[in-house]
């Protein structure tokens, strides 16, 4: 049930990004709801579960919008796996740290996207990729408190109970 909800939110997030947020795009940047979800899920559930959710939601994104099936699955999977390593070390009560985590994840995702795109024969400039990630990172950071509050409430309540 929980997984289904995550998939539904990701599904709507992808549709929203390509429709409503086209009109609200700032300097070409749009929020990446899937990335935010993967990072926060990994922070609370660890690298293995974070990695698998990253692969699953990344694949969903690829199937819904991508022409290159698998690129987002790889990138989001690795981001989830890496973010999961902060599970034990991160002060989950401090809301600033997860915001920074999302910014780092946005740039990390851009670098991974670049590397794997080049590997499969795509022609993408690293500078273009990183510069276009700046507005994306700002947008993601703005949305991160809302997502973090929901994840925090859900996972800490569950732990306490």
């Amino acid at each position, binding site marked *: 049930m929980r997984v289904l909800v995550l998939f539904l939110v990701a*599904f709507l997030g992808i549709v929203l990004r390509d429709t409503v947020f086209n009109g609200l795009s700032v300097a070409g940047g749009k929020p990446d709801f899937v990335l935010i979800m993967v990072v926060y899920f990994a922070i609370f559930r660890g690298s293995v579960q974070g990695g698998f959710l990253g692969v699953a939601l990344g694949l969903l994104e690829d199937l819904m919008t991508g022409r290159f099936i698998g690129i987002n699955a790889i990138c989001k999977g690795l981001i989830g796996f890496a973010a999961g390593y902060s599970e034990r070390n991160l002060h989950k009560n401090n809301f600033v740290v997860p915001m920074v985590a999302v910014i780092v994840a946005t740039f990390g995702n851009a670098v991974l996207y670049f590397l794997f795109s080049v590997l499969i024969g795509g022609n993408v400039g690293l500078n273009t990729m990183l510069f276009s990630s700046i507005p994306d990172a700002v947008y993601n950071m703005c949305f991160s408190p809302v997502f973090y509050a929901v994840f925090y409430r859900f996972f800490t309540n569950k732990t306490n109970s």
Partner: protein
Amino acid sequence: MFKKTWIRNLLVITVLLGIFLGLAVNTVQPRGNLSFLEKGLRIAASPFQHGFRAVDGAVSGFFTYFTDKEKLQQENEELKQQLSQLNSELTQMSEISMENIRLRELLNYKEETRGQFQLQLAGIIAENNTNLQHTITLDRGSNDGIQTGMTVLNHSGLIGRITAVLPESSEVMLLPDRESAVGARVWSTREVIGVVEGEGSVSSTLQIIHLPHDADLYVGDILVTSGLDEVFPGGIQIGEITAIEYSANGLTKTATVKPYVNFNRLEEVFILMNSRGGNA
């Protein structure tokens, strides 16, 4: 124990990397048909895209109001002074607006019955512009007779071609997409000069690379589709040459092309219904 977990994780990552890289390599070229899963997900997303698109204008307008508040206040003062004049023009504008709607309907009718260039009007319901791909989703699909490979254009010129079709929607690979290429000729001389390629950004220009140094090409030349690539029909405007650069050894040159279509302001487009295989 810790080492065991690491080895297991590494093994899983390697296997998944192999699977998905293989998938990505196999899908790197534009595909005519989408997989069952892709079709299912995109069909499921289609009603949401239509719905969200409807509120898109209202939402963006709401935020624009706040960002441009100072500017709006200044404009408001000026507009008050012009109010009396605008009132008289309002009636006239309404007349023109209604006339425009009628003319648009007439134009559609005329185009549809023209025979040679049968055009289908389509609206854009989603845009997917990343550094790797530039595509738009149209609200017309196989139920409207849309097929893969059809040319998409507007009054300004060539926009792209249909790369995937669903019952209620279709996807268009835009001209600035890195995978996009179109055979071009100079409009005035009719000389076929090469292939215009996308540079990967909707705001940037197109380019023609590896031109012979003595190619008869000048800044300001207008380019149209050649029709020789058997993808796009001939004679559709592409853009204008804005710069020509010679390579370091002087053997070849590269031309920069500014497309006539503003890819950032696409709202409605035409699909050329009888353009498959460059036969239009």
